[in-house]
């Protein structure tokens, strides 16, 4: 199945993503009660097999918060943070300094899930406004493991259809502290077409 997106479609997705992530940054800033800046998110179209390398290698330890999306566009969202971003996030939230590789307590896991929930909701909220499509988020599920192992379940949802995947990388900045968050949104190509149609670039 061919699913090459046109430059215009990619630009539109970039712009919507930019606004969505802006809303997410505002939401994060409210949670943390401090100013949060955001760099322009990168939107990439990747081959399935190259996804783990983009996230720093298949064996890279990462935290992932996964949501099932129901509504007009059933799909999954993965919100992924590498270990140093997790540690920075926890230091901002709780003032704790975790060592690399240290296990997370249930309350820390829960806090990260809530941050993932807030950011994903803010992002989907703006996507919903632009497209007039409805998205409902499930409760989050948590995993901390190798990047390759985490993403394969999400890729599977596309895996039956296509070998191409859309990835959004966001960098939030709190002063010198960087939190790099990756959103992987994985609707199948037919649903992606519905999003493009709703954005007015269905055949562009």
């Amino acid at each position, binding site marked *: *199945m061919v699913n090459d997106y046109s430059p215009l479609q990619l630009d539109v997705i970039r712009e919507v993503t930019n606004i969505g992530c802006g809303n997410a940054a505002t939401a994060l800033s409210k949670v943390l009660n401090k100013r949060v800046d955001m760099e322009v998110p990168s939107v990439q179209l990747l081959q*399935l*097999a190259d996804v*783990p390398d983009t996230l720093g*290698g*298949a*064996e890279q*330890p990462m935290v*992932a918060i*996964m949501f*099932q999306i129901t509504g007009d566009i059933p799909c999954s969202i993965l919100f992924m943070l590498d270990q140093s971003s997790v540690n920075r996030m926890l230091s901002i939230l709780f003032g704790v300094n975790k060592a690399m590789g240290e*296990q997370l307590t249930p309350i820390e896991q829960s806090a990260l899930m809530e941050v993932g929930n807030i950011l994903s909701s803010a992002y989907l909220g703006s996507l919903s406004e632009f497209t007039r499509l409805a998205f409902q988020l*499930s*409760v989050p*599920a*948590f*995993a901390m*493991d*190798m*990047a*390759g*192992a*985490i*993403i*394969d*379940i999400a*890729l*599977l*949802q596309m*895996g*039956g*259809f*296509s*070998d191409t995947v859309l990835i959004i990388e966001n960098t939030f900045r709190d002063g010198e502290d960087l939190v790099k968050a990756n959103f992987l949104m994985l609707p199948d190509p037919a649903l992606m077409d519905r999003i493009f149609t709703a954005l007015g670039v269905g055949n562009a």
Partner: protein
Amino acid sequence: MMQSPQVTQVGMAQLATALAPHVLKTLGLGSCVGVCLYDARLRIGGMVHIMLPEMALYQDKNNASKYADTGIPLLVREMGRLGCVSSRLTAKLAGGAQMFAFAGQSDLMRIGTRNVDAARLALHQLAIPVVAEHVGGNFGRTIELSCETGALGVRTIGHGSFTI
């Protein structure tokens, strides 16, 4: 000085074969299953990184090595071209984890278990015995098959390392 053996990396939905002393490796198996076949007489190994149980259930028919029911017979044929006889092959399985726990399990979330079942079935139909496996759980695995010995190394984060 001992030279370390050459390592061939097997990506998602790919397969590879190698002769001793090469090592076949796949990184970060989650719900995917690494199926390793070994011919001890010729010391030839094969590995396929399967993602889904059955080709018939999915639209993409271009890549046979993505599915258990087509990838395993394909690997056996590839090894046959190197002179391996399927009656001599033994199998080891690793992977098939369930990485996320959601309330009300959907079929998608159980894909690890379904992949393992489909791999066992395909091997059974080819009369290839499964001599060892390290499957299930909720954690990822990196595996390395030594074509020298047929030993399969399994590495995890926080759940130990094993040789099976």
